[in-house]
């Protein structure tokens, strides 16, 4: 057997297991069964910051990063879009609607779409302004340079950075600190996570980026998604341990 020949079977099996588990876990959640998840301090503070921002008549800024929808980082962009929709819904009563910036043209159009959906579902479509979903710049540094004026000039009191960033995210967290604004950051990129840990207020590490919409009650499929991630994680751990044991015994399964 050629090594790697059956990789597609493993991949397909993983996808089928995840899909069945996701569907199976999301259906009971539709009947308002509430799942209790562990407390993530950053998200607790985010919820508080959303409330305070609305109360103070300030603005929320959601930065979606530079994810390309056709690239490897598209999932981080999708997590950012789901977060944006929830934040737009939660802050609908605010005098100043939230603003979204992105580093990709398609992502900026989808950010406008997400905000339109939130306002339409909340029967407040007249408040929707497409200019609140903006393209910041299409290279990492031009994106950071394009976002800084938004953080400075738009009465922003809370910044939610969710998506794919590089180390330039440090410039954005610094700008937020200078404005004495709350900042929470989550990224799928390792350098950005390290920078956010050092420079940010409330960094979310690893797959916690995908937990934000679920913790903001984005819907049963998001909450079921967290449980599926846990199941898959245990499965991967079991496979790694099995691989080690079989490796020691000199048995090659693939």
């Amino acid at each position: 057997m050629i090594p790697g020949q059956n990789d597609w079977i493993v991949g397909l099996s993983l996808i089928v297991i995840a899909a069945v588990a996701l569907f199976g876990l999301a259906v009971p959640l539709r009947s308002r069964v509430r799942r209790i998840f562990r407390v993530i301090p950053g998200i607790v503070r985010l919820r508080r910051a959303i409330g305070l921002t609305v109360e103070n008549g300030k603005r929320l800024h959601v930065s979606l990063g530079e994810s390309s929808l056709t690239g490897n980082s598209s999932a981080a962009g999708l997590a950012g879009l789901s977060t944006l929709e929830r934040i737009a819904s939660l802050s609908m009563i605010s005098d100043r609607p939230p603003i979204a910036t992105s580093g990709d043209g398609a992502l900026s159009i989808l950010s406008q779409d997400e905000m339109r959906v939130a306002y339409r579902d909340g029967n407040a479509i007249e408040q929707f302004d497409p200019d609140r979903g903006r393209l910041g710049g299409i290279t990492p540094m031009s994106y950071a340079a394009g976002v800084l004026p938004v953080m400075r000039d738009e009465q922003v009191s809370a910044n939610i950075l969710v998506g794919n960033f590089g180390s330039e995210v440090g410039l954005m967290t610094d700008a937020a600190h200078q404005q004495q604004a709350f900042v929470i950051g989550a990224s799928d990129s390792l350098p950005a996570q390290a920078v956010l840990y050092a420079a940010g207020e409330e960094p979310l590490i690893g797959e916690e980026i995908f937990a934000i919409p679920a913790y903001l009650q984005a819907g049963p499929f998001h909450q079921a998604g967290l449980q599926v991630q846990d199941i898959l994680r245990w499965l991967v751990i079991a496979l790694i341990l099995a691989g080690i044991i079989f490796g020691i015994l000199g048995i090659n399964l693939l």
Partner: protein
Amino acid sequence: MKAPLATAVAIVVGLLVLAGYIVPIPQLLAIRTIVLGWALILVAVATIVGVINLVRVHWLKVTRKEGRDIFSVVFLLAFLATVVGAVWLNPTSPLFQQVIMAIQVPAESSLMAILAIVLAYSSLRLLQRRRGLLAFLFVVSAVIFLFLSSGLLSGADTVWPLKQIILLLNRLPDAGARGILLGIALGSLVAGLRILMGADRPYRG
């Protein structure tokens, strides 16, 4: 009807592309290549739309009655000059590339320099802002790896206990990074499945 139709198209196309990736059938690979080609064209169009939106926002900032932004004027002039230059000279022209790079490289280098200072300052303040074992370990590991990559131990990697210690230390970031990346991969898989199931529809506006 718009949303169900869009959802059905997204699900069918998504499944075809996914099948093209994992099932080794040449026809599916061909379909995947064609669909991804279309996607790239759409992304390019979306970028143009995004840039037009960006120009519009800056134009509104320049023409509003109160709080006009001088930097928006600079942006609009630079944008206009770039577009005219690209149309006049051709974007692949060496002269045009040289002019753009002569502006872009120093500007981005300056931002990188500022970033280096910001990160150094933030790291110094980390233990002040965030107390706890994790923050302490972060700072200690940052110092250790700065020391290891400084070249000061370049001769020591042949000495028996030091060599093993350095090898062990260099393995630690790999292990941590793999753990984080596995988590992100699983999260990405679930996010993709939500799109394929039509449960997450960022395009329904």
